[in-house]
């Protein structure tokens, strides 16, 4: 566990997660990111998620479901 603990920089601040949540909530509808990584240790998830999410998008397009990739903005 010591080795794993050492991967996170000492100045990594958990408050950054809360800040990221506020930022996403405050974004306009339809413009919010599908994923936000807050990963001071850089364990590689952002790279793999990036690939996986892109492949998912391609798959939805290929099967004719690209309309499900973004939320419908109904007029309220």
């Amino acid at each position, binding site marked *: 566990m010591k080795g794993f603990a050492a991967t996170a920089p000492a100045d990594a601040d958990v408050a950054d997660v809360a800040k990221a949540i506020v930022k996403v909530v405050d974004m306009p509808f339809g413009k919010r990111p599908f994923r936000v990584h807050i990963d001071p240790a*850089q364990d590689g998830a952002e790279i793999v998620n990036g690939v996986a999410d892109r492949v998912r998008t391609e798959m939805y397009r290929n099967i004719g479901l690209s309309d499900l990739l973004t939320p419908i903005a109904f007029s309220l």
Partner: protein
Amino acid sequence: MKNIIVITGASSGFSALAARALANAGHTVYASMRETTGRNAAPVEAAQQFASENQVDLRTIELDVASQESADQAIRTIVEKDGRLDVVIHNAGHMVFGAAEAFTPEQLLQVYDTNVLSTQRINRAALPQLRKQKRGLVLWVGSTSTRGGAPPYLSPYFAAKAAMDALAVSYAAELNRWGIETSIIVPGAFTSAPTTSHTLAHRLTRHVRPSTTTAPTRTSVTTS
């Protein structure tokens, strides 16, 4: 725009911090947790104090994510009071430590219940209202462990977070059609936690629920 927000597992950790930050940003935040009059009376009081000192709209509400009835009641109360619900934040979680083989299926199920099935209960309680509004946001707090390099001996938690992430991805597409947006927040490892001086370092501040299981070799990663 001021949003009406409910966040789960808000007695401690990321969730307690996020609830305060959202209230500071001008939103109405329901910091939900179980046992608000019992074990979590102190976090409830702390939230009330924060709200009055900072003149912000931070409220607490009883919600045991292990109970559909409790989830239904909490969402009903919010909608009755505020007339709507704009944002649902799935954050309740629980981590246990130990060799994968050492956990009984029942113990694994309990970890899945808190981390995965909890979101299904909240969704089934809240999504009808969001659909009715034709507008909403579902925000999931995941984990880098699901796709990044992750250490051993945390298998129940990592497996559960992977399940939650897969659920979130499928939900995202299905909800887009109803005007409900999805965002997945993916925190990694942090060595410090806001509500504790423990430094058993990992993905940590999500241990919002003290253990109710008796997993072998589990260490004191729980912080509340």
